[in-house]
């Protein structure tokens, strides 16, 4: 029975990794931009939530609703005024810019909040649990997974059922012809990054309430997110969820065998999937 429990906990952990990765997947899928500052933006959003919670005394979930438009604006502006300028045939400039951005965010956060590790208080929710059949699951991990599924459902709806989603896909296919349709690629990219930052805010909510964070932990979270995106197949949102769950399960299984193996097991699972399916589990057909 301990194995069932371990796998269930792994799936729940996978929800957190999928949330880390969903924004990354969204941005990459639309504009082929690899955002190396993604992890740091999650940490930035976590500090924003911390400030809102401690200054206004709001529940973290309500604080996330307040933070979402702020993060959307940050993402929109970041894309519009910085990243759009470096997007092009050469993939190196955006990598360098987002790498630099990562360093800047970490240092600004250290300057403002010191290197102490912090946590967003979530009251009794932190320890609440729910018996489901033979296993007991924490309410926060369960909410995390449900949020991840909700985020991916919402993004799928946006992509395949709305005019903006059609514009996203068309611009991703062919920005010049998209322009002939009246679409402004620069604005579409800015909207996409804005939406990615709303997802980042949701990721930050669970990152910040479930564990401690400090200004430098972004890059480590980014690695799990990358692995989830790549295992799932670049640009596939459901693939990203599957990728997150594979890494989560591998990590908890590894930890169950020997606590030292937790991180290693996740990376090994990543390499194993790449060995069998080099393009990931659900690669997009037309890449």
């Amino acid at each position: 029975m301990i194995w069932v429990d371990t796998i269930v906990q792994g799936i729940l952990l996978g929800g957190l990794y999928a949330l880390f990765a969903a924004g990354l997947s969204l941005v990459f899928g639309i504009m082929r931009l690899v955002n190396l500052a993604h992890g740091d933006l999650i940490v930035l959003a976590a500090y924003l939530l911390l400030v809102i919670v401690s200054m206004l005394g709001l529940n973290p979930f309500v604080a996330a609703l307040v933070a979402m438009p702020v993060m959307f604006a940050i993402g929109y502006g970041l894309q519009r005024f910085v990243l759009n300028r470096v997007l092009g045939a050469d993939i190196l400039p955006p990598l360098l810019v987002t790498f630099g951005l990562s360093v800047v965010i970490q240092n600004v956060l250290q300057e403002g909040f010191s290197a102490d590790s912090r946590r967003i208080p979530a009251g009794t929710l932190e320890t609440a649990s729910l018996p489901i059949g033979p296993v007991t699951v924490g309410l926060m991990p369960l909410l995390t997974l449900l949020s991840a599924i909700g985020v991916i459902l919402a993004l799928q709806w946006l992509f395949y059922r709305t005019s903006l989603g059609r514009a996203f896909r068309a611009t991703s296919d062919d920005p010049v012809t998209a322009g002939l349709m009246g679409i402004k690629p620069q604005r579409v990219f800015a909207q996409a990054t804005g939406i990615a930052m709303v997802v980042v805010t949701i990721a930050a909510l669970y990152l910040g309430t479930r564990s401690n964070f400090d200004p430098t932990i972004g890059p480590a979270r980014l690695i799990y997110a990358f692995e989830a995106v790549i295992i799932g197949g670049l640009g596939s949102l459901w693939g990203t969820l599957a990728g997150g769950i594979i890494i989560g399960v591998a990590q908890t299984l590894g930890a169950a065998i020997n606590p030292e193996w937790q991180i290693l097991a996740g990376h090994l699972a990543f390499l194993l999937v790449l060995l069998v399916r080099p393009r990931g589990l659900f690669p997009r057909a037309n890449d």
Partner: protein
Amino acid sequence: MALLETHGLTAHYGDFQALFGVDIRLDQGECVAIIGANGAGKSSLLRSLSGVLRQEPGMVLLDGRPIGALPADDIVALGISMVPEGRRLFPSLSVEENLMIGAYRSSGNGAWDLDAVYGMFPMLKERRTAPGNALSGGQQQMVAIGRALMSNPRVLLCDELSLGLAPVIIRDIYAALPRIRQAGASVIIVEQDIGQALKVADRVYCMMEGKVTLEGTPEELSRDAIHKAYFGVAA
């Protein structure tokens, strides 16, 4: 005043100059054909009209208003839409989504909507859920035309509609043109197929090496004059 006109239009790709002072005019309700050999500058001209290539503002006038420097997405909103060379359908979008995205900036008033396009090209309705690039070349061309019409343009620019298509398919495609004009669009077509161009156009411009070398109605242009304007005077 002409609906759409160019004044001394030039176009450059880096150091290479593709157009050397082109003056053309399109009147309301007219269908103008632009013919010429490969590399004559026909596509550069259409790309300048549609805003894919941006030029000096005064080089392109719509209702006398300078629009030469506007980007493609603003040009569409002003009522000029293009069927690009090679169709350029969006592979991630279904046939119906390809059509719908043509109306991205349109308010939805006008003759053309999904039903009108399906009415003109019924086979597209059967394939509406197929990905854009899963269709035959002729059907893709129909989608590209329908997509451009969805914005209810005042000016429709068609770049090489016949490219890579069988003669019987080309005939079907061109059979749609009278209906498009009837619905209110003025049309500029670029063609390598001179016979086809002379058949449908009210006026013809012939281009060579980035300049207009001949202009006239199909009736007044002799085969010989077109031949000279097309290939240059034989040595």
